């Protein structure tokens, strides 16, 4: 989405769908919520879906031989179908529910290790795993753990001064030794939207799998996993106006069918004896135990909400608000944006430093003006280290963010500068 043209929607009207956005904070200040990359707010439709489920249809799924059980099972499996449609998955069985994106990424890393040596996809000693320097810790640590367990070697793409993925060594980094490449679609810290096509093409040339961390992408970009061509895409519900406690791993069915289970427990089995067990087909194979049922129902309502708004329009709004914010923020003396400075191939998370004021103090002062942002390393310590900073302040936007809120942020930043000046 280099440029996204076209009409958007009425943001004022959209805001009315989100009860929390009308909250007043201490000092009777209106809430200016600029922390959506951390977690998004929830529309009434999602809150209602959760409440309705618990009030009318609550039961365990796939094990209860009663009417409520049938209703709950139907709602849960219907949610799977709706999520599959939302991301363009060819088969609903390719949607595995997890508790969050971290679990989805850990799942892949774990089973790829366990798949060796039987499967050609298995990661073993001497193989290579490729990630990038701009990953969230949840797409670094699981691969470090896999490397430690298997004896595989972990390698990574660097980041340019501008905050883009440095793909100049694409062909020497992804080689015949590479078994898996895992990278973010949109960086949670730099905001960069990565050009996945070239990476996927190269990885597939050498027979490596591609895992995409879509945590920041699925909420704000139109996604069609079939067209994308990756092998796995992980994302989380709570960043896309859905509930916490649910994430998704989408994976190519033939691949999921070949991989061993992740956690053991109820519902992931075919049959169990005291000596050994056989395992269910995907997705059940990867969903041990009682799943997040109400959360799946809520996530389906979230996907419906986003689809009704139109993901192309959500993306266009994100682009517009990010361009406005980048312009306004960079007019502040002493403020430095860490990441791409123009709204080109860029998502709506802007991390920055303010000369002489530590990010914690910035966030505290902004909070006293009703402006909620995140301060710290945003679970991306290596990306911070790359830019020689220990922490940053991050403002992140979503489909309900207004230019007035950006103005409030800028005003509060001037106040912060004066306070510490």
């Amino acid at each position: 989405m280099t440029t996204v043209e076209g009409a958007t929607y009425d943001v004022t009207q959209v805001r009315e769908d989100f009860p929390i956005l009308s909250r007043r904070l201490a000092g009777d200040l209106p809430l200016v919520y600029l922390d959506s990359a951390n977690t998004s707010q929830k529309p009434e439709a999602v809150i209602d879906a959760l409440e309705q489920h618990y009030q009318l249809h609550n039961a365990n799924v796939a094990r209860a031989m009663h009417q409520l059980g049938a209703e709950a099972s139907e709602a849960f499996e219907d949610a799977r179908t709706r999520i599959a449609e939302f991301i363009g998955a060819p088969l609903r069985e390719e949607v595995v529910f997890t508790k969050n994106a971290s679990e989805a990424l850990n799942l892949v890393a774990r089973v790829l290790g366990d798949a060796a040596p039987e499967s050609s996809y298995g990661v073993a000693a001497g193989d290579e795993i490729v990630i990038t320097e701009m990953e969230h810790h949840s797409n670094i640590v699981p691969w470090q753990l896999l490397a430690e367990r298997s004896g595989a070697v972990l390698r990574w793409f660097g980041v340019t001064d501008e905050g883009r993925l440095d793909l100049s060594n694409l062909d020497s980094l992804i080689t015949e030794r590479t078994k898996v490449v895992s990278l973010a679609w949109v960086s949670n810290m730099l905001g960069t939207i990565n050009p996945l096509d070239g990476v996927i093409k190269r990885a597939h040339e050498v027979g490596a799998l591609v895992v995409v961390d879509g945590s920041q992408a699925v909420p704000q970009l139109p996604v069609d996993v079939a067209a994308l061509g990756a092998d796995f895409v992980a994302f989380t519900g709570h960043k896309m106006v859905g509930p916490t406690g649910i994430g998704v791993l989408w994976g190519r069915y033939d691949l999921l069918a070949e991989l061993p289970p992740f956690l053991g427990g109820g519902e992931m089995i075919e049959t169990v004896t005291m000596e050994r067990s056989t395992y269910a087909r995907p997705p059940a194979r990867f969903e041990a135990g009682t799943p997040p049922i109400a959360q799946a129902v809520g996530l389906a309502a979230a996907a419906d909400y986003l689809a009704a708004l139109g993901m192309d329009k959500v993306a266009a709004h994100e682009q517009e608000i990010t361009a406005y914010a980048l312009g306004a923020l960079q007019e502040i003396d002493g403020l430095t944006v860490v990441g791409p400075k123009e709204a080109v191939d860029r998502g709506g998370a802007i991390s920055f430093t303010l000369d002489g004021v530590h990010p914690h103090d910035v966030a505290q002062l902004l909070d006293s003006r009703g402006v909620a942002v995140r301060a710290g390393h945003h679970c991306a310590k290596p990306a911070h280290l790359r830019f020689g900073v220990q922490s940053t302040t991050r403002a992140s936007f979503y489909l309900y963010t207004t230019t007035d809120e950006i103005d409030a942020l800028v005003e509060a930043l001037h106040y912060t500068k004066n306070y510490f000046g």
Partner: protein
Amino acid sequence: MNVDAQNMDSLYQEIILDHYKNPHGAGLRDPFEAEVHHVNPTCGDEITLRVHLDDGAVADVSYDAQGCSISQASASVLNDLLVGKGIDDALDVLDQFQTLMQGKGQVEPDEDVLEDGIAFAGVAQFPARVKCALLSWMAFKDAVLQADPQEGTS
């Protein structure tokens, strides 16, 4: 808890901002018996802290810290308060400072003991910032125990 603009001044007392801008005793020095490195994993604040103990007293506390105004000022106040004190007295001060910080704003600080440290009373009302204020103090405690293991048993 009210976090509006008026209350910012109770968090960011003038004394705290002064210590932040001109930290006392900053930098790492020799000699030292123990050096520790502590981090606040949620925000990434870091401190490397050395203690030099001599004849039952805290002869020096030197440090290199990266962090917010609260954590930096707190390390500066620690240096002011503890250098020159007997080890036991220093640990008593630490105890009082910790009690104040974890008192949710309900603890009345003793100015005779905590001196500039009483400026942190307001921090106790901001749960997210208590760890910032305690970072250097916990590092100090750890360093003293490493330098003089018997302190842990007294």
